[in-house]
């Protein structure tokens, strides 16, 4: 036999199965190049020069691992689907006199072609575009450092190893599939009559309950720290609920529709309902997968894009002023010293201080029960812990320029987080009347980062504060804490220089406390959130490809099954138009059901996500809504394009005249 025989057959097979092979090849190429790009970026030496570059690199590296993991799953899944579709073909070879080892040989060549095409194009695109993505990454992170572009041998090496293993596993899977099959079964393929799925009420109810519980958590969680803890519980509940509802709930609903004779026996609903019952049986898991994947994509992209766009906001929220100095145990003399140092350094650097906020306060933390702050050593939930800053009224008047006087049993209250409804506040056994609720203590916003109950309480004099402190901290008050925030009109480099000088001076004096500069922090913010956004784009793309691919293959394979069904219907008297509209409705439902469901998920997840974003300093909800809607529109648009392409292919397959 001609020694090129098998390789020729293999090449022909790829050509003849192009409808299913081409999407697979494209997926291989895309995942390989994405992996290469991600990996080469994560080890790019240029990133070391950035502040926060280390963190960025580890984020990227983590992304690489996730990417590799999902690529492996998708490619393997796609390939096994491809093989299942071709069982009939293998059966034919078998009957025509080929032994299984000959089929193995053909499949071997097909795999070799796939590997060669995928690696050449995948790595080729990877190398070409990695430079582009490197530039995009730097642009996103706002860095201007010289580009050192390199072809990463390590990344190449790992791409070859990882995807090589995936291809080998796929090939082995093919071999077992062929090996285990008998020719007669191969020929028959999937023609065995399928049993109608049963209604499972209990599972449906469990599905509704888990989904409801997930939603309930999202809607009712108040504290952001709780939100972080409960988010994953909610996610798992929703995932379980989604699967159960897609698998059993859909069938329950459809069967209920079928029981309703007046609804069911209508031309429009008749074929659709019965068709969907079978469709859901085969597709429920696939559709649930799509739903979960698209939800993941949407959440990932919308949050990271909001964080990224809201970066400036975010830095401002975290650092209300360019410089924030907070010192502990300060005497009045210490305050004068630090103010002089700051004055001195700024004058020397020719900088102007603006928008000053200064105040002295005492900080305590105590669990709160309604309007009562308790002294207790018992373990209590973090959601009850409150941060309280105590300020004298004279300090408050100095800050705001007001002229308020308080009696000994009166206080002013500013609530940052965690409302107190009562008109009094009780510190263990002392009751204070809330004279007024205020909101003009400016440093307040910096504490929103902590997102636990926090209050500013203004008292009539220092003695009361000292007394309360003694009671809660069990020690004499050594000195007040001092908070000093200011803006500076100067370039970023100068601000960072000033920051370094300030820190040096502080250490020299031996003050205990913190000096923060928003400029200094900005870079690390950019590395962190920019890096996350970048990864979200990559993973989002991968998930999107996976989603599209699952849908495409589902439709194609069903097209072949449905072809016969529609032929019969046309013979019995269904018109071409009716067939067309039935197909359109079915495809539409299958396509958009998961998308609608993930839209619902996101709507319910919205409250909890905003709370989590608040922990990450993003308090601008409008921005998040915009980001979410933007992502949703882009996603839906992409989805619709894929839908129309698939629907066309599907219709071509099922339409009566070949």
């Amino acid at each position, binding site marked *: 036999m001609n020694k090129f025989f098998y390789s020729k057959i293999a090449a022909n097979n790829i050509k003849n199965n192009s409808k299913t092979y081409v999407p697979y090849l494209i997926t291989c190429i895309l995942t390989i190049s994405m992996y290469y790009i991600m990996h080469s970026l994560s080890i790019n030496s240029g990133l070391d020069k950035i502040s926060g570059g280390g963190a960025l690199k580890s984020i990227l590296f983590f992304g690489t691992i996730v990417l590799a993991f999902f690529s492996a799953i998708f490619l393997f899944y796609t390939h096994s689907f491809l093989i299942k579709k071709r069982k009939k073909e293998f059966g034919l070879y078998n009957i025509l006199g080929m032994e299984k080892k000959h089929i193995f040989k053909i499949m071997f060549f097909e795999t070799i072609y796939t590997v060669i095409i995928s690696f050449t194009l995948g790595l080729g695109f990877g190398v070409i575009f990695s430079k582009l993505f490197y530039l995009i990454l730097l642009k996103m992170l706002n860095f201007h450092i010289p580009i050192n572009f390199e072809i990463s041998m390590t990344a190449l090496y790992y791409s070859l190893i990882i995807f090589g293993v995936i291809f080998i596993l796929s090939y082995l899977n093919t071999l077992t599939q062929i090996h285990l099959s008998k020719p007669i079964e191969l020929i028959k393929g999937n023609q065995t009559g399928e049993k109608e799925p049963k209604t499972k009420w209990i599972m449906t109810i469990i599905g509704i309950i888990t989904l409801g519980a997930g939603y309930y958590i999202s809607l009712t969680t108040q504290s952001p720290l709780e939100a972080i803890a409960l988010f994953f519980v909610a996610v798992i509940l929703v995932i379980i609920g989604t699967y159960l509802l897609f698998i059993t709930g859909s069938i329950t609903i459809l069967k209920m529709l079928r029981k309703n004779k007046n609804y069911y026996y209508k031309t429009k609903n008749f074929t659709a309902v019965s068709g969907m019952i079978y469709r859901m049986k085969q597709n429920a898991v696939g559709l649930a997968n799509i739903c979960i994947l698209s939800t993941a994509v949407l959440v990932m992209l919308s949050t990271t894009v909001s964080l990224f766009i809201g970066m400036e906001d975010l830095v401002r929220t975290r650092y209300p002023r360019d410089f924030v100095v907070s010192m502990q145990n300060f005497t009045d003399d210490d305050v004068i010293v630090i103010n002089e140092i700051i004055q001195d350094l700024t004058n020397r650097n020719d900088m102007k201080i603006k928008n000053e906020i200064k105040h002295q306060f005492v900080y305590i933390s105590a669990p709160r029960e309604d309007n009562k702050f308790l002294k207790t050593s018992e373990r209590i939930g973090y959601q009850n812990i409150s941060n309280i800053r105590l300020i004298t009224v004279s300090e408050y008047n100095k800050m705001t320029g007001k002229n308020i006087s308080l009696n000994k049993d009166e206080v002013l209250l500013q609530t940052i987080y965690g409302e107190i409804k009562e008109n009094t506040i009780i510190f263990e056994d002392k009751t204070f009347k809330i004279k007024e609720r205020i909101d003009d203590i400016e440093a307040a916003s910096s504490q929103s980062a902590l997102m636990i109950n926090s209050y500013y309480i203004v008292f009539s004099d220092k003695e009361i504060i000292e007394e309360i402190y003694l009671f809660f901290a069990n020690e004499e008050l050594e000195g007040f804490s001092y908070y000093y925030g200011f803006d500076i009109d100067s370039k970023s480099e100068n601000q960072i220089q000033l920051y370094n000088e300030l820190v040096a001076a502080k250490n020299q004096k031996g003050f205990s406390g913190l000096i923060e500069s928003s400029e200094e922090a900005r870079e690390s913010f950019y590395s962190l959130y920019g890096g996350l956004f970048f990864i979200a784009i990559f993973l989002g793309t991968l998930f999107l490809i996976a989603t599209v691919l699952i849908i495409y293959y589902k439709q194609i394979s069903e097209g072949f099954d449905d072809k016969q069904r529609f032929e019969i219907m046309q013979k*019995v008297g269904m018109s071409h138009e009716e067939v067309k509209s039935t197909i359109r409705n079915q495809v539409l439902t299958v396509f958009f059901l998961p998308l609608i469901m993930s839209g619902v998920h996101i709507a319910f997840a919205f409250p909890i996500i905003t709370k989590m974003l608040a922990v990450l300093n993003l308090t601008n909800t409008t921005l998040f809504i915009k980001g979410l809607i933007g992502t949703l529109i882009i996603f839906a648009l992409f989805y619709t394009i894929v839908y129309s392409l698939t629907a066309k292919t599907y219709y071509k397959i099922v339409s009566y005249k070949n």
Partner: protein
Amino acid sequence: MAILEVNNLKKIYTTRFGGNQVQALSNVSFSVEKGEYVAIMGESGSGKTTLLNILASLDKPTSGEVLLNNKKITAITEKEISAFRRKNLGFVFQDFNLLDTFSLMDNIFLPLVLSGKNYSEMTKRLNPIAQKLGINNILSKFPYEVSIGQKQRAAVARALITNPQLILADEPTGALDSRSSESLLKLFEEINNEGQTILMVTHSVKAACFAKRILFIKDGEVFHQIYKANMTDEQMYQKISDTLTVVSTGGAKNE
């Protein structure tokens, strides 16, 4: 009065790139009276299936015309054709063509649902037919749950439920064992005796014995025809076999 009239039907298939032409029907003319039971016989490739497809309005002839109740079905527009088919024709196929996603009842209802009938009317129509065909206690079962004989009965019920002018049967016994065949053919005979016009294409001599008239088709033309009249089944069987021998050995045309 002729319920179906076929005049000078001709069908030429052209291969996709306009190369070869195959003449499936060269010149077919015949007519079927109301209440008749006609079988069409012929070898593979004689043009039987093409003829049936044209009668079923699934295919269009190259030339010639088909009249059903004096209405030219070859001239009906694409839009109306499905509704026309639903109203006037009932089909019984060799491989039943039941949808596996529907219960037997829903399969039988399919043409009525497509015509927009309401549920109570559908059940009213179904009951007597199901009774007659002996399938009234398996109506809620699915095609994969019943025997082939029962499947074919359901298919017959689907053909009958619209009260069609004409039932077209394409090798209805082709997939059945001899006992199921026998009972199906008896059923056809019974239905025919109640006045239903039936046109059946078949290979099987035995199936053809039940018809009142048999047309033989060869090379795209009506070659010969036999009336059963008062012949017994055995005599009829003999006569058909003889005729088939003549047809296949290429004897001259005789009337």
